[in-house]
């Protein structure tokens, strides 16, 4: 056991230089998501219940496919940032927090990849 205080052990190591990046990206993605969510909800009110051909035609328009991919990337990035804060605040011991964080990150990346590939497949069909 060291007699040095925890503060002394980290002093001089320097800052990670990205302390505000998480906070900032959470805000950037949340601002982007306001118009994207409005677009998504309005679109889904109609296009979630139409025939396949109508849906496929709608999603094959570059603007709609582009908005959908942007929406998905922003959603999953924002989700990762948000879940990270929840885990950091509530999950202990620390290793469990890292396990939860890694599992969630991998799962969200995979879900995002599946969703985007699906959109591209429909759009480019």
């Amino acid at each position, binding site marked *: 056991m060291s007699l040095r*205080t*925890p503060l002394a052990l980290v002093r001089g190591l320097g800052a990670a230089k990205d302390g505000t990046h998480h906070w900032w990206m959470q*805000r950037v993605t*949340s*601002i982007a*998501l*306001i118009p994207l*969510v409005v677009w998504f*909800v309005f679109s889904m*009110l109609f296009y*979630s*219940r139409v025939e*396949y*051909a109508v*849906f*496929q035609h709608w*999603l094959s328009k570059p603007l709609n496919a582009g908005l959908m991919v942007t929406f998905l990337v922003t*959603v*999953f990035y924002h*989700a990762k940032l*948000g*879940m990270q804060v*929840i885990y950091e605040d509530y999950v202990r011991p620390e290793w469990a927090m890292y396990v939860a964080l890694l599992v*969630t990150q991998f799962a*969200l990346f995979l*879900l995002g990849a*599946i*969703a985007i*590939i*699906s*959109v591209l*497949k*429909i759009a480019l069909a």
Partner: protein
Amino acid sequence: MSANKRPLSPFMIGPYYKPQMTSVLSITHRATGAGLVVGTLLLVYWLAAAALGPESYKHGQAVIGSMLGQLFLFLWTWALFYHMANGIRHLFWDAGCGFEMEQATKSGWWVVWSSIILTVLCWLIAGS
């Protein structure tokens, strides 16, 4: 005293603090956020079903159109609007506006009602 033996302030949920409107809204923001993450499973399922062709697209619509699917979708809609409205409230705080207790309570009620009204409005449009 080593850092990990220092007394901690008690957790906000439990017998220590009286729940306040603002604190309940705050934890609801996190709860809806986590709920929306689970809800993305439905979104990904639906998109993947559509990508597999007309047959599975129809099946996906039936799954989401079922009682349970509609219930999830309804809760998801409310969580989405709540998280968005309260997120906007947070952005105003980030800009340094609305910190007074009276303003925070007022904006809190604004979030509650706008999320309910937008959800009902959405489902009225969807049902018509």
